[in-house]
């Protein structure tokens, strides 16, 4: 199946160019090519920081709750059975710290969304790189390697390890290789992703918006000829669609003025939306009927 986005050069903005660099195509077993976008490195770093923040807050809250139980409710300091309670709480604390280091990411990434809360907020999820199933082993592998990518460097820096002379410097460089790994490959894979055969892709949810041509048909009031409609291409149509959906009076006026100037029309005050809806419907009808005959026009330059 041909990729629709491969149609001709287009005046890219900086943002769309950065985005198109991360576009990948995945072919489903139905033979349908699904576009995937590799998660941006910034979004991934943000997701990680969010997760660490959640972990930290969670640990602090649980610790406070434990000490409230221990010293407030049961008053373990003065009762003879206090020892057993403190022991149980200490075991719980040790296991909690252990689980928060290794279990948090594992648990959430094994769920149906394959994303930790931080990743969900950043609109990311984990997926198998070969397009197959994401298995439990993959998630385990990628999260075990996380230990040297996140926790060891963090403990190293917090513990002031970088001040330890040549050895400290060597350790620092060595750890940085892992930390900076995602920067040096095009799929932003970290070491854990390579070992597990996974990658992190964008997983936005899109809402179904209103159909565009439900507005009253104004073909009788506005008649556009082929000369007027063949000026613009698909890119301009999509910009127009966005403007219409946003429905801001000033941008509607700007766009309407630009179009009327181009096709040599005069437009009355207050008719902008009506005119643009009619023009949109006509242009889309025109481009789509051409499309059915295999003629596509990417933008006004082509």
């Amino acid at each position, binding site marked *: 199946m041909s990729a629709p986005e491969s149609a001709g050069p287009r005046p890219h903005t900086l943002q769309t160019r950065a985005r198109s660099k991360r576009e990948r195509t995945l072919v*489903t077993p139905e033979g349908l090519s699904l576009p995937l976008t590799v998660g941006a490195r910034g979004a991934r770093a943000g997701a990680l920081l969010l997760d660490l923040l959640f972990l930290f807050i969670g640990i602090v809250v649980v610790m406070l709750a434990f000490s409230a139980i221990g010293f407030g409710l049961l008053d373990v300091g003065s009762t003879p059975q206090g020892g057993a309670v403190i*022991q149980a709480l*200490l075991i719980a604390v040790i296991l909690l710290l*252990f689980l928060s280091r290794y279990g948090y990411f594992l648990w959430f990434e094994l769920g149906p969304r394959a994303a930790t809360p931080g990743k969900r907020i950043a609109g990311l999820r984990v997926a198998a790189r070969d397009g197959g199933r994401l298995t439990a*082993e993959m998630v*385990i592998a990628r999260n075990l390697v996380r230990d040297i990518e996140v926790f060891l460097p963090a403990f190293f820096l917090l513990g002031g390890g970088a001040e330890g002379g040549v050895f400290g410097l060597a350790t620092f460089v060595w750890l940085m290789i892992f930390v900076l790994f995602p920067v040096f490959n095009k799929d932003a894979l970290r070491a854990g992703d390579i070992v597990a*055969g996974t990658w992190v892709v964008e997983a936005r949810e899109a809402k179904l918006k209103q159909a565009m041509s439900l507005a009253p048909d104004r073909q009788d009031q506005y008649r556009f000829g082929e000369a007027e409609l063949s000026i613009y291409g698909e890119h301009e149509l999509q910009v127009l*669609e966005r403007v219409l959906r946003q429905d801001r009076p000033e941008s509607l006026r700007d766009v309407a003025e630009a179009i009327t100037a181009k096709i040599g029309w005069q437009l009355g005050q207050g008719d902008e939306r009506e005119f643009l809806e009619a023009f949109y419907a006509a242009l889309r009808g025109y481009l789509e009927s051409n*499309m059915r005959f295999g003629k596509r026009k990417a933008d006004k330059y082509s």
Partner: protein
Amino acid sequence: MVLSLFKKAEIQPPADVEAASLRSDRFRLERESDWQRLESIVTALEKNRPRSISDDDLLELPVLYRKTASSLAVARETSLDAATLDYLESLVRRAWFQVYGPRIGLFGWLRRFLGGGWSASVRAIWLDICVALAVMVAGTIVGWLLVEQDERWFYSLVSGGMAGGRVPGADPETLRETLGTAESSDGLGIFAAYLFSNNTGVCILAFALGFAFGVPTLLLLVHNLALLGAMYWVFADTGMGLDFAAWLSVHGTTELGAILLAGAAGLHVGRTMAFPGDRSILAAMKGAGVRAAQVMAGCTIMLIVAGLLEGYARQLVGDTPSRLAIGAVMLVIWVLYFALMPAPQERET
């Protein structure tokens, strides 16, 4: 208003199909209730609430998925409605992740894992286990020889806090005390939990370091085992070698086994990275990583057992023969389990 947040989103009936002036919009309006039905199923699956899906919907899921996928294929060739294309792409992608997502949950995976998946992957990395074992034995011997040659080596191998009085030339009584038992089980739970979390950290490190061609893993194994060898020499020097071995074997056969497997798993990944064979390096790494991850998941289980043995059994059972017996029994159990447990029939995750 608040209640509506908890209600299932109703599927809006599509607007009158005839009202749309564009052919592609009519195409969309005719099908959008199917799409929204699929979306509600996918959302329920994503929220891990498959029970809230009605039987009818569940039966229809494959049909709805294929319908929506074909809608996307058609829409790409006939429609220029960017918002609809966007919606369809995101919906098909979400549905694809659910339809081809992991089929078994954590517990299903655990059952298959214990029922042979673990032992099969342990057997699969036998070569790395042999290498790691050789390195560990060599490390122990090195530690022993170094300290035997020059006692000062002991202090550079074993940190002061860890030695806890167990230094060369120490009073035999002090040494015997460290091998002793606790009076009651008070506080042993904490000790066991601490040991477990500490040792698992070491194992995960041994695995994760394998990524750098396995070299750091080997160094880690050598260092840890040299420490053991040095410690053994201290006890053997005062004629308590057997007592120390017994004391160690209670949990050691399990714990050292776990460290052996973790090191072997790390080595497996590192070795695959260095010698990927006929496959591409990424494909080879992936296979090795997944196999090693299974072994590692098993290490955690072994370390829980080791922590309990170390925290309770060793502190409560004092005499050397019983300790040796416990250690030997554990070793036999693990070896038999890994060698004989057949691999699960179907490997479908």
